[in-house]
């Protein structure tokens, strides 16, 4: 990227007069983390990612405003700090992945005990009637049938809703003609 000799070199930073080069091994920080770190600092500097994303990447760092109080060296160091920041974020995301999935399933499909049913719900084999008002044959999708024989209403009825306030009862059932009003 540059044939000049650096003015100063330490850790993974080579400092030149107008720019700094930060070497990042992709076995330590993958490209996604490098991109996130650079994106986070793009209001302070310019970042050019070079090198091999499978081996070693070299990030060229330049100050946006040469009169700013932040020095080029500080910006390069801040980039290193951001690499740690996003690496930790990815580690935490991997650790909490299972919990997030359980919470999402519970939110979408009902109570935690219904999660087993949610897992058995094959999202890849949904019929077209689930996403549109008509089936492939042009018939109306009144019965809300998924995958031949499984009725959406049956699935919903099988959920054990906890409704102590009675707010899940439809208005028609509660105040409709049958109730005498």
């Amino acid at each position, binding site marked *: 990227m540059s044939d000049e000799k650096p003015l100063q070199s330490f*850790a993974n*930073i080579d400092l030149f007069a107008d720019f700094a080069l930060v070497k990042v*091994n992709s076995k*330590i920080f993958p490209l996604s983390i490098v991109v996130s770190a650079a994106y986070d600092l793009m209001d302070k500097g310019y970042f050019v990612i070079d090198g091999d994303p499978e081996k070693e990447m070299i990030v060229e760092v330049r100050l946006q405003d040469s009169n700013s109080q932040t020095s080029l060296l500080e910006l390069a160091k801040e980039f*290193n*700090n951001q690499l*740690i920041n996003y*690496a*930790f974020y990815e*580690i935490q995301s991997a650790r909490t992945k299972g919990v997030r999935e359980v919470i999402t399933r519970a939110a979408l499909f009902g109570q935690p005990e219904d999660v087993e049913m949610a897992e058995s719900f094959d999202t890849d084999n949904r019929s077209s009637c689930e996403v549109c008002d008509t089936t492939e044959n042009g018939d109306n999708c009144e019965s809300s049938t998924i995958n031949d024989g499984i009725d959406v209403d049956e699935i919903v009825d099988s959920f054990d809703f906890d409704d102590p306030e009675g707010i899940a009862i439809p208005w028609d059932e509660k105040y409709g003609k049958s109730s005498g009003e």
Partner: protein
Amino acid sequence: MLHRTFKDNTVVVTFKDSVYPFELVVEVLNEFKESCWVAIYGEDQTNFKVYIEPKDSSANVEIAYGEFFNYLLGLMRAADIK
């Protein structure tokens, strides 16, 4: 194995097939990044170097070095690493 080099109020710690997991080192440095300039570089997640430099030049890097390993110890105990 660990190797450390102190220079100009900075320290570089070399981790080579050490007992410390890479993920926990990242977690400690994430806590240190508020008060220190930190970096991880090297070959891979078992052979790497950690750079620590206090942002406040009057702070002693040897204290940061000691706190770094104590924090790491705490995380290892919490993670129940045997």
